[in-house]
């Protein structure tokens, strides 16, 4: 690219940035502050702050005042309010007031408020939101942000002086704590705010943040922690994990009544709605009818790939909307996302097709219309997305749900029931993941390093790690020092012990680990770039590997032709022709939540009652009646106290369909467990496929007697051993180990350029998994991989619960003559992996006609 073109692009980028940049404001304030730090009494500060709210036409919500007072009283805690209800001001108000009313703060500027957000895309918005009242009140408080996108120059500036308020991400915070002398800069922090805490807790990022904060609290003893959380069920636990053990958190809830109405889009004829599928495109006409370009509309899909496909499909149906419509998902380039977010704010964009990338707290005005494609699979998630509509507290929220298959019509009804009952899901914090512990030790090994006694105390002050045993602790220390789990390796060089302190052996090792900080698991991403032009975003390496030069794909709402892959960049050029192939990212289908499962089973029961003529009318049940009658005539519809199992014999073999409505990961687990147990009784080849609703076993030989099948599904004897021996367990563990290897720094990462020069240090996590299994089979990190599979993938507690329920309830084992509507999705799920998408859709349509005949 010529230099003038570069300049031009730079200008274009600047133009896109829109509203004032917080950093420039911060500069002005630094200058202003030298002259005037106001002498405000505490009462005067309060008065000014309230005055600012009044000038906005707002009066502070009671919960906001409550949080400000609790902060001033020295409390830590958690604020639970729906998205977009003024959480940010609730959290920063107290600390800002204390800061401005502190007469000495002007003389000794120091970091006082630390605001941590899980999404770096949100950091800028938050900084601006905090800046606004400060600007208008003339309070000379600095606000700045530091994320993975912060330039090296700006990062150097932080080393000289930190702002009063710093907005950052968990990973950037961990990196800040690798700077020499961070303790001196940060010991004066008064407030730590954890935004979107429900998103973080329960993930390894959340665990790592817990440990980072534990180290931080040991230095900044006066810091009060306030977590901001949306809709979850276990607030007490969330609060205690946020503030750390030994503190008694205050929980403040906002009772903003918010009624959510769910409307399910129903086709005129139920035949138009497929019995299997995830994309929902067959209801495109119904969805397009709901979109009015005069109103702002957000269309949520569950995956990035579906967002791409929906965007194209709507564009084809309504080419005249091309100027007011955009696509937003996490793999698009930041500039592009920013343009979309600005477009929503300024109102130039009327329709945005988005994934969960817009789920979180990006602050933009209410959209009038929220359409969710496919069930959100969790009540809390549905509530969260509904929060995007009429983003004003106290108002009614209306969400339309487009089912992607017939069962999702029932899910819509289940969601509504769950919401009416005020039921929400829990987020469970992880229990001392050892890979995260190893990373924490390494994060503490920079510069002067750490004293193991001190760090042990800090680590155990984190709620999820308070049960770390002495054995586990000394293993982790030994592991970073000598590389050994069972034996130690004399050649191993990473961390050494000097005067009782653990520290990196060299600055090279420290530098390398710095690149490894953070635990977000991302597939090795490939940048997509127009040749000689703009970066479009990221795409999975595995997807690019399948492309041949000349292939045309949809990416970021454009049609592009793939040219070549070089240096981890996929070069493309705009293409004229349309392509049926949308970029695909790896990711999994969301499993149904426990709570939604419960309501779904009740809806199935209502369907049964409706078929029997009992009055159970709702639009969804009514729409499903033709299918319910078919199911009921060919088989049964179970009551909430029954479990339906269908058996049938086809040319392919013996089928067993089990309907649990428990989410696919549990279904898959139980399916493999049953397959293993049945194949142990007599030699048999059994294939397992699972959906959110149930699982299918297909075998060459008869599966067994009713008693044997019941035993296989419900027996608790030898449960864990059988699960570990079942067919897919090693594969799941291998996948879990990939994340562990990255988190614990087992594999060399670093920039693509550095990877190239360090090719002889490359090792795939999968190979490492084999090596560990062969040579150190009892390695704690291998055990961690098994634990991750049990707890997070198979959800072993939920599996046990399901098995217990199956043991107590009546099992209806019904031989069926032909496929039933319930069996259909399971049948397709198995064959779909053998067919390309296009062929699959044709075949599904044909099968569906046949079954319905």
């Amino acid at each position: 690219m010529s230099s003038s073109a570069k300049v031009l692009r730079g200008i274009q980028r600047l133009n896109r940035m829109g509203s004032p940049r917080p950093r420039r404001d911060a500069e002005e304030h630094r200058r202003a502050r030298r002259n005037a730090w106001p002498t405000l009494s505490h009462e005067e500060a309060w008065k000014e702050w309230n005055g600012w709210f009044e000038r906005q036409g707002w009066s502070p919500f009671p919960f906001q005042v409550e949080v400000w007072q609790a902060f001033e009283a020295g409390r830590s805690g958690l604020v639970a309010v729906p998205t977009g209800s003024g959480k940010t001001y609730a959290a920063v108000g107290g600390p800002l007031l204390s800061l401005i009313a502190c007469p000495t703060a002007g003389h000794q500027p120091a970091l006082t408020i630390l605001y941590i957000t899980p999404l770096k895309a949100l950091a800028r918005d938050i900084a601006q939101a905090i800046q606004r009242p400060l600007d208008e009140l003339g309070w000379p408080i600095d606000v700045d942000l530091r994320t993975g996108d912060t330039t090296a120059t700006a990062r150097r500036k932080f080393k000289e002086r930190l702002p009063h308020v710093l907005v950052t991400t968990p990973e950037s915070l961990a990196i800040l704590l690798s700077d020499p002398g961070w303790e001196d800069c940060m010991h004066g922090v008064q407030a730590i705010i954890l935004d979107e805490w429900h998103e973080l807790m329960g993930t390894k990022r959340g665990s790592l943040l817990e440990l980072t904060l534990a180290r931080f609290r040991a230095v900044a003893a006066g810091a009060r922690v306030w977590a901001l959380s949306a809709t979850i069920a276990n607030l007490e636990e969330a609060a205690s994990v946020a503030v750390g053990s030994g503190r008694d958190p205050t929980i403040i809830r906002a009772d903003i009544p918010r009624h959510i109405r769910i409307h399910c889009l129903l086709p005129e004829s139920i035949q138009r709605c497929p019995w299997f599928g995830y994309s929902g495109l067959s209801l495109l006409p119904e969805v397009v009818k709901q979109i009015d370009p005069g109103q702002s509309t957000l269309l949520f899909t569950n995956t990035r790939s579906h967002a791409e496909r929906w965007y194209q499909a709507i564009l084809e149906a309504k080419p005249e909307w091309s100027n007011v419509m955009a696509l937003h998902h996490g793999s698009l380039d930041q500039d592009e996302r920013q343009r979309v977010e600005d477009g929503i704010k300024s109102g130039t964009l009327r329709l945005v097709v988005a994934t969960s990338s817009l789920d979180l707290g990006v602050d933009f005005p209410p959209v009038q219309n929220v359409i969710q494609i496919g069930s959100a699979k969790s009540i809390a998630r549905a509530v969260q997305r509904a929060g995007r509509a009429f983003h004003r507290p106290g108002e009614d929220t209306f969400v339309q749900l487009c089912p992607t298959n017939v069962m999702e019509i029932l899910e819509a009804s289940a969601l509504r029931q769950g919401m009416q009952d005020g039921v929400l899901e829990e987020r469970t914090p992880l229990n001392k993941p050892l890979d995260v512990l190893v990373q924490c030790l390494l994060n503490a090994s920079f510069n002067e390093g750490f004293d193991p006694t001190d760090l042990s105390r800090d680590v155990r002050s984190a709620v999820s790690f308070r049960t770390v045993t002495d054995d586990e602790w000394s293993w982790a220390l030994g592991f970073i020092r000598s590389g050994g789990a069972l034996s130690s390796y004399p050649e191993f060089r990473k961390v050494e012990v000097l005067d009782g302190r653990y520290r990196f052996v060299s600055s090279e090792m420290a530098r390398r680990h710095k690149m490894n900080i953070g635990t977000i698991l991302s597939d090795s991403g490939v940048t997509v770039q127009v040749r000689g032009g703009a970066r479009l975003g990221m795409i999975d390496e595995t997807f690019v590997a399948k492309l041949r030069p000349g292939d045309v794909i949809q990416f970021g709402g454009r049609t592009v032709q793939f040219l070549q892959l070089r240096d981890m960049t996929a070069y493309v050029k705009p293409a004229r022709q349309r392509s049926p192939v949308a970029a695909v990212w790896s990711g999994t289908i969301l499993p149904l939540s426990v709570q939604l499962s419960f309501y779904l089973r009740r809806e199935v029961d209502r369907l049964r009652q409706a078929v029997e003529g009992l009055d159970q009318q709702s639009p969804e049940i009514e729409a499903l009646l033709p299918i319910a009658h078919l199911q009921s005539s060919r088989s049964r519809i179970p009551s909430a106290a029954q479990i339906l199992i269908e058996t049938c014999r086809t040319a392919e073999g013996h089928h067993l369909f089990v309907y649990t409505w428990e989410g696919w990961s549990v279904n898959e687990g139980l399916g493999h467990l049953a397959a293993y147990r049945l194949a142990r009784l007599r030699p048999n080849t059994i294939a397992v496929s699972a959906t959110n609703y149930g699982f299918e076993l297909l075998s060459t030989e008869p599966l067994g007697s009713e008693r044997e099948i019941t035993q296989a599904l419900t027996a608790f004897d030898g449960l864990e051993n059988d699960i570990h021996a079942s067919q897919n367990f090693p594969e799941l563990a291998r996948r879990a180990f990939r994340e562990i290897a990255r988190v614990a720094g087992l594999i060399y990462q670093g920039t693509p350029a550095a990877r190239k020069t360090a090719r002889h240090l490359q090792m795939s996590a999968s190979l490492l998994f084999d090596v560990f299994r062969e040579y150190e089979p009892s390695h704690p990190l291998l055990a961690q991989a098994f634990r991750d599979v049990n707890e997070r993938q198979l959800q072993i507690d939920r599996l046990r619960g399901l098995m217990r329920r199956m043991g107590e309830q009546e099992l209806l084992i019904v031989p069926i003559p032909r496929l039933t509507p319930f069996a259909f999705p399971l049948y397709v799920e198995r064959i779909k992996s053998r067919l390309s998408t296009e062929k699959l859709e044709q075949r599904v349509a044909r099968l569906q006609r046949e079954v319905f005949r």
Partner: protein
Amino acid sequence: MRIRIRNEWVALLPERALFWPTHSLLVVADCHLGKAETFQQQGLWLPSQSGPQDLKRLAALVFKVDAQHVLFLGDLVHSSSGVTTAVVMEFSQWLSEFSGSVQVVLGNHDAGLARRWPQEWAKAERCEQVRIEPFLFRHQPVDGPLEADTFYWVGHVHPMIQLAQGPDRVRLPGFVINDWQGVLPAFSSVSGGYDVSLRPDERRFGIAGDRIYEL
């Protein structure tokens, strides 16, 4: 599995080696001794047991096929820094226990060590390539037949053959053979590999456990 190339019978062994009965020659490529040590020095975890284990496998294989000659097809070691005293000892012990002749074709990873070849390894004769008609053994593959009559046996690539049936994917190490060249799998048990895509003029032999399949 025995195949016939240029009128010579050779055996592709599931132990990831090639055996040429005519000359009682066993060929192994890409042993990468000292890989674990190289990693450990760089602060990366890799158990040390793999190297000795690989040499044990090699000794067993030599015994099994009763080889008189062993040829290493390049990348005997992973890096010169990884060749610690322990690694030198392990390989020299294998050399002393093997009564036949040993040749080492130098690969790109051996470059550093070639300049200061351990005394204890003197028995292993070093060379750039080895010609035994009608074959030529070298480390790096050639792009096309340089000499019409010669068939090349090479290493370097660590070929992995991908089999996919729906979501079931397996990657198997194996041999890739065309009209003028055969690529050996890496002998090392801690080496990854590169996926090779199927080309119409190639035969692929994948190794699954102790069997070898033409795919």
